[in-house]
């Protein structure tokens, strides 16, 4: 009897994120006009796509107990690279994409180098990339905003089977990442390294490479996310991508990814987190809440979500306390 109770209770706790997500969605659905429509759902997804992709990369870094503050600057840098290729050199947009991803990879690799080879703590290493990286970008553009030709912006309007391209890209990234983490040796070792670095070393895993790889992934995701958003907005001001590192981290943590490493998933975790934040913001706008109050409510809800998650973990720990009497049973 009691056992069943606890099992139910536990199941409930395990899925707080999802439950909260549904609650938020329904509440706004009831409050705001035409919110629970398919169209709106698509809008929300497509708007989640760019930050969502970045969040996927961030999740990798968080899984090994790291942090990447440089994604915002990487977004800008790769956007600059794209513009150089597409606008200045007037090459094909596909080369633009390549350049974009290449830059993302390069700076991700730099982070990896600083963290694994030089042994600088991730927080500082990526902080530096964040500061210097943007400076570098501005040096190139002289902070003039970049406008992108239709060849790029049209990509945003492409639809396959009625679904927007950026949503598909997002889905693809999430899918790949999820499979990678759950089904490949590298993915599992990533969790291992995040769980116990020393043990991972002893087990002869190439820890440095594993950790390094996450920053590269994060860099590439940042670049790709940047590109998706360029295609949507067609114009990149000097402030492009600023603070998106915080949005990404917030989304990941809301999705149940631990900042201490080893815990969390891309699907459903990070995905839910991202979309949830988006839903809240969209809901506030749809409801036309006083623009000064919106961020306050936003903050409050996120805080509540994190609090809930914390309480749940405390509860789970209690339930998880080793049970001697059932040990043999």
């Amino acid at each position: 009897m009691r056992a069943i109770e606890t099992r139910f209770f536990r199941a409930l706790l395990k899925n707080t994120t999802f439950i909260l997500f549904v609650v938020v969605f329904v509440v706004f659905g009831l409050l705001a006009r035409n919110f629970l429509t398919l169209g709106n759902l698509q809008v929300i997804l497509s708007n989640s796509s760019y930050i969502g992709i970045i969040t996927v990369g961030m999740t990798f870094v968080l899984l090994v107990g790291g942090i990447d503050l440089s994604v915002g600057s990487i977004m800008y840098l790769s956007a600059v690279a794209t513009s150089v290729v597409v606008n200045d050199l007037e090459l094909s947009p596909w080369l633009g994409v390549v350049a974009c991803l290449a830059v993302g990879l390069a700076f991700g690799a730099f982070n990896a180098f600083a963290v694994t080879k030089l042994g600088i703590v991730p927080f500082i290493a990526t902080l530096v990339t964040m500061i210097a990286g943007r400076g570098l970008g501005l040096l190139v553009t002289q902070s003039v905003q970049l406008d992108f030709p239709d060849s790029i912006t049209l990509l945003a309007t492409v639809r396959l089977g009625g679904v927007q391209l950026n949503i598909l890209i997002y889905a693809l990234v999430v899918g790949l990442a999820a499979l990678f983490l759950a089904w490949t040796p590298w993915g599992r070792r990533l969790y291992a390294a995040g769980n116990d670095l020393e043990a991972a070393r002893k087990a002869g895993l190439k820890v440095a490479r594993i950790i390094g790889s996450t920053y590269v992934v994060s860099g590439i995701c940042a670049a790709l996310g940047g590109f998706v958003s360029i295609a949507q907005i067609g114009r990149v001001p000097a402030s492009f991508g600023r603070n998106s590192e915080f949005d990404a981290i917030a989304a990941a943590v809301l999705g149940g990814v631990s900042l201490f490493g080893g815990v969390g998933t891309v699907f459903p975790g990070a995905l839910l987190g991202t979309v949830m934040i988006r839903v809240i913001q969209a809901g506030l706008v749809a409801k036309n809440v006083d623009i000064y109050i919106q961020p306050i409510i936003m903050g409050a809800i996120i805080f509540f979500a994190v609090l809930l998650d914390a309480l749940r973990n405390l509860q789970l720990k209690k339930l998880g306390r080793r049970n001697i009497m059932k040990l043999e049973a």
Partner: protein
Amino acid sequence: MSTESRPAEPGDARGPHAGSDALVGHRPAAWWSRARLMKLGRTALLSEYFVLYLSFLYMLVLGPFLPQLFATQNLADMVSNIWPLLVVAIGQNFVLITAGIDLSQTSNMALTSVIGAVLVVTACDPVLFSKCPLWGTLLTEHGGPLAGMALGVPIAVLTMLVIGSLIGWINGVAVARFKMPAFMVTLVSMMFFSAVAIYLPKSENIQNLPHAFVVLGKGSIGPVPIPLLVGVGVAIGAHLLLSRTLFGRRLYAVGTNPVASTISGIPTARIITQAYVLAGFCAALASVLYSARLEMGRPTLARTQFIDIVGANVIAGVSLSGGKGKITWTAFGVIFFVLLANTLNLLDLPFYTIDIVKGLVIFGAAFLDVMRTRAAAQSH
């Protein structure tokens, strides 16, 4: 222009080696044996005062290119820029020792700045403020509730400190009692309180602060500027607190191993909470200084300052993983950062390069710290 930037940049980027050499290179080598020099270099590298040396060295290297650096006025400005940052950085230090982090100090400063100003402001323009939620209740044409009161300013400052500490307390409880990740908690409260700070005056800066308030940022008692008194006072206080008291010892213990600390009867949760309260308190205090020198309450005060606050600490070797950190270190870190900002400002760098240089310097310093810890580990 950019040619001038060059020497500055590598000058600090590869500080360590340049460090130990130049440190001694500047006196006649005749009466120093080589071995002695090496030893001195090593001592310097491993010494507590390393970052301080680095600052001196940095000045020395830049001196020739930047005579204005040593202009008395400039030195005075530089020093005056140290105190507020020092105060808030010290607050951060407490939290870092517990292996936490407080991202919300910036919006804490903004909110307290607004609130303090609202209380003492002597007059405000209805055109600007009639829309804001405080209008009629706290704010009128004749300023805030404490306007012109004899003890108005002290009370206002006190309120700021209380509210600042309160914000810290909220963070602390969330982290210590509910075991929420510090980064996330303070990130959210950063968003939240910044929003509140902007909401209260509906984005307007609050001017016409009474002289008694402004003095706190600009005035001086005898020859000594008040901010200096505050800064040094806080520094000494914090130093004693950390090195000489029960709280200090327990703080380090908690930062090193919370489980062992709890079992050893240390009220872990309370200690951690107190650390955040201190962080909030210091933020509010710094907010007083900043608001006073800017002569206004700003809902966007210190928006971009987080990097300096944490950077100053980390550069000086305060560990993000807890248990390690001293006030002297923070002080050196702050000096270094202010110096850096000042020189980057004086150098006529094209402003795009400033961030790059700044980044590289932090990078260099961080890398140096790694080298030092390794060297230390070796010699142990």
